């Protein structure tokens, strides 16, 4: 008997899907267990919300604070990054800089992207200290903006170059000053780019660990830092760790559901160039 066409393909996809989904499912399920049931390794367990409740509401857990820190840092650094990247891209691609300046900047941005963030963290720590910004969210916002700027600059460059020159000239003839031109002509045209770059910057900032680890302390820690602490306590609280891991993946899920288009666009654009 011949199987219908495509059976193999779907079987393969299903298998791969299982590999992706099963670890998630298991960890989320672990978050609904009690420590004892997890350690016993029983297949069957009575689901309980205890771990989630403790992570979210207990006085000793700083998860809500961490999440708030993460959110503030991610939003602020994304905004900063987009503003700088858009203006920077416009300047680089549309204001007759000598070629070597443009290429120098872009190449340098690429190089910067390759440096392991941890190598920069040391320098940032010293600087933040000197500027009184250590253990503040502002310090981390600046660091994250700097980390994501190269990517955003490259992406916005692609979109800025696509703005038709005729439109720009027409606006100039109508007497538009540069700010007006940027605001009313360029901005609407590069909006898709802003969305794609913004989503990526947000996710990367939310996920970033190395800089967050070195630049924050207890009350400014972001979610990844908090989770790392969980995993390193002497007496590991496995179920709480599972619950907070599950919770911290929520933004990723939301982004995936709401902004998949931009994610795909951003990631592929970044690499095709």
């Amino acid at each position, binding site marked *: 008997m011949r199987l219908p066409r495509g059976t193999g393909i779907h079987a*393969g*996809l299903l298998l*791969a*899907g299982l*590999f*992706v*989904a099963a*670890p*998630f499912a*298991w*960890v989320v399920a672990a978050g609904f267990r009690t420590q004892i049931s997890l350690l016993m390794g029983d*297949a069957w367990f009575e689901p309980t919300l205890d771990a989630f409740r403790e992570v979210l509401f207990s006085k000793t857990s700083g998860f809500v604070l961490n999440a708030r820190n993460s959110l503030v840092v991610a939003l602020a650094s994304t905004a900063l990054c987009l503003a*700088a990247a858009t203006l*920077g891209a416009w*300047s680089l691609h549309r*204001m007759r800089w000598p070629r070597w300046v443009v290429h120098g*900047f872009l190449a340098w941005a690429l*190089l910067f*992207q*390759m*440096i*392991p*963030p*941890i*190598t*920069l*963290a*040391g*320098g940032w720590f*010293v*600087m933040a200290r000197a500027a009184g910004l250590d253990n503040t969210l502002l310090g981390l916002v600046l660091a994250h903006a*700097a980390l994501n*700027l190269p990517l955003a600059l490259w992406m916005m460059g692609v979109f800025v170059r696509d703005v038709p020159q005729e439109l720009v000239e027409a606006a100039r003839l109508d007497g538009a000053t*540069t*700010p007006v031109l*940027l605001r009313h002509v360029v901005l609407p045209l590069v909006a898709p780019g802003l969305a794609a770059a913004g989503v990526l910057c947000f996710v990367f900032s939310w*996920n*970033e*660990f*190395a800089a967050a680890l*070195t630049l924050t302390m207890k009350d400014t820690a972001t*979610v*990844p830092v908090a*989770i790392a602490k*969980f*995993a390193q306590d002497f007496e590991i609280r*496995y179920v709480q*760790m*599972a619950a907070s*891991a599950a919770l911290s*993946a929520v933004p990723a899920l939301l*982004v*995936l*559901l709401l902004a*998949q288009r931009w*994610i*795909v666009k951003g*990631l*592929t654009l970044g*690499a095709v160039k």
Partner: protein
Amino acid sequence: MLVLGLLPVLNLVALGFFNVSWADGRSTWRFVGATHYAALAADPLFRASLCNTALFALGAVAGQMLLGFALAMLCSKAARGRVFWRALFILPVLIPGIVVGAMWKLLLNPDFGLVAQLLDGVGLPPVNWLGDASTALLSVVLVDIWHWTPFCFLLFLAGIEALPQDVYEAARVDGASAWQELRHVTLPLMWPTIAVTFVFRLVLAFKVFDEVYLLTGGGPGTATEVVSFTIYQRFFTEDRAGYGAAMSVAVMFLVALMLVVAVGARRRAAAA
């Protein structure tokens, strides 16, 4: 105009400061001459961690590229549900590296983790994946494959979907088998995408830190000590910033060198 031209430049200069000040830190060390670099060349730990990083990067990236390509092929051939599969496969990339580490630390736990349970189910003895020097690096590589295959998948899928359809029709008219189609049509056309993805991933793999930090902390012994982690330790646990900085520069130089070689190879391939 001046303001707009200046603002991003200032920003980039400010950004440059991060590097400069850190280079400043290094320049003070220059008084000790090149001793840091000399020590670096002789440092067995640094050599081990470079070696580990290279092993890790090559293993992980090779796995990711192969799996990513296979998945992209499957997904592009699927008649239905493409959007759903794509969404599912992207998910791991969006999760914080540290969370991936935390998840797999639980999953790989020899006492109660899912992997141990599955092994037990087929009658195999539990393996202390992360605690045993012989499996620790392999485990980290596998976790990284899980984490980053979607990235390769996504780029390959975009590449495959952008391929012109008429070549395939021509190949089919000529009676090409599926394998010949892959070998003589898809692969050559995909070559640029594959090369770019490879370089991208290799550079990113050299930056690996989060997962290793949480999964093994470089151990047991130095089995999973990667360069990011070595640098981190010099800077923050041993307070030897100068030495750490020298290490960073060396790694940066190596990565840049890799990139130059890759770009050069690509140019030559394009010219040929």
